[in-house]
């Protein structure tokens, strides 16, 4: 039976408006609410539905993060993942490094499907799924809004700029979840209790023999240039007039 690996990244909650530190070294994360990357909840929901349809036997949640990422893995277990693996790092890694780790785990676990998010809402990189697919030598179906499995083939509808594209990929394969793939379930209290007893293995990043430095350094972090606040017009006539004066309509 199929085994599914799901990426769970711990990120700043999407409702938080992050602040850049005055010294330009990064963003202030102290006391900020952290959550499972929203796209990873969608990825996990999809894995769980595939399992519930009887099309997979095990769902494994994997996070590359600090000790604290165990919280997000517990959330994943409460949602319904069978097991979790934390690859422990001391600081955030580049998507290329995360990809190498995920491939190592996918090989170790003999995974049939790897489902990741389309992008992490902290780095907004949108790199990991295609990188994992490339390094693993497998097909990719990114921005998935519908996944159908039949034997050794997955048919996937993808959200692309022109509309909805359908492709077919041979398994094993890597998928990235887009917003419309599903609506993730809510975690119920008894599930949180049950999740505490599910296995969560911790692997030291250094044990994998993967280099953390990929030669990309952060020089500086700054806030965006603010947009100046405009005016409130009193009615349609004033709005149309203002836009006409600017030659916009």
């Amino acid at each position, binding site marked *: 039976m199929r085994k599914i690996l799901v990426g769970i990244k711990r990120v700043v909650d999407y409702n938080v408006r992050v602040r850049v530190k005055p010294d330009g070294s990064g963003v202030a994360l102290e006391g900020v609410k952290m959550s499972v990357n929203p796209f990873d909840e969608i990825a996990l929901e999809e894995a769980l539905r595939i399992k519930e349809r009887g099309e997979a036997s095990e769902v494994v949640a994997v996070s590359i993060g600090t000790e604290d990422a165990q919280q997000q893995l517990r959330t994943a277990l409460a949602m319904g993942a069978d097991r979790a693996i934390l690859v422990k790092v001391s600081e955030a890694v580049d998507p290329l490094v995360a990809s190498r780790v995920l491939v190592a785990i996918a090989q170790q676990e003999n995974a049939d499907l790897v489902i990741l998010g389309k992008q992490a809402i*902290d780095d907004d990189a949108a790199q990991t799924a295609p990188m994992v697919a490339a390094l693993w030598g497998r097909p990719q179906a990114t921005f998935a809004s519908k996944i159908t499995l039949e034997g050794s083939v997955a048919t996937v509808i993808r959200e692309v700029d022109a509309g909805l594209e359908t492709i077919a990929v041979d398994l094993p*394969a890597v998928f990235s979840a887009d917003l419309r793939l599903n609506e993730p379930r809510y975690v119920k209290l008894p599930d949180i209790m049950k999740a505490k007893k599910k296995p969560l293995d911790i692997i030291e990043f250094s044990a994998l023999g993967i280099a953390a430095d990929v030669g990309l350094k952060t020089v500086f972090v700054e806030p*965006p240039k603010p947009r100046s*606040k*405009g005016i409130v017009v009193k009615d349609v006539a004033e*709005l149309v007039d203002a836009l006409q004066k600017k030659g*916009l309509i």
Partner: protein
Amino acid sequence: MSKILVIAEHDGAKLNQATARAVTCARQIPDAQVTIAVFAADPAAVAADAATLAGVDAVVTVAHSANETALAAVLAPQIVAVAAHYTHVLAASTAFGKDLLPRVAALLGVPQISDAMAVEGAYKFKRPTYAGNAIVTLEASPDRILVASVRGASFEPAARGGNAPISALSVTVELPTHTRYVSLSAAASSDRPDLASAAKVISGGRALGSKENFALIYSLASKMGAAVGASRAAVDAGYAPNELQVGQTGKIIAPQLYVAVGISGAIQHLTGIKDAKTIVAINKDAEAPIFEVSDFGLVADLFVVLPEIEKALAG
């Protein structure tokens, strides 16, 4: 010298405007020599189109029946073979580029800079993170190929008037058969301006309330010659197709005029429109965050004012 390879995005006939924006980014790299690579079943028309972009030094083509449709798994190994002669590989940060470039970078064993928004040096770029709330300056190692996707909203499309030489390359790499194109269903009609490149965009939000009501947005857009966009809430509710979503996880656009109708202005939406020259907001809640970024705000019920605006435009 920086030898930049820009991967062409196209529909088999014409170059996508997003590639012309990536060319502008490429040109800003110090001492750049810019080559556009066209992968297609029959690249002639697209190559001819690409050759007319100002600032392009050369166009190279790779013809292969497997390149009839753009599949990342099929294109990536071909790009890797061509990339060996270049210092940089760039593509637009569109669905095409986001799907393709990381696969190329991984095969090359290099990291990627996503959504480059400013060039600070041959290996130094700025990019947005946290929905545009933190701008990061990144520096890559000069002894490896630099792979970057280009944020279209930050660069004007390259002008026309160029006349670059076109040459055909033969690439002999094994192409995978594990990924197959099936079909494309396009919801939006092609007689409207393209959302990504339109000078004017009108977007509707959750407040429209239904797919039928969303026709109000289409109607006004037609009158103004504008493209139509939508908030995530409007797309999720099925009022508008997914490819119209504007924002952090949809399209990032920079039109001359952006009109947000019944959209609250969540950070995920705002990051998609921050580079618009003029922003108009119509919302019945005077406290809506959209008014913090709008040049002209109208506090009103959209169902009252949209017909009024249409009438004013007709008169």
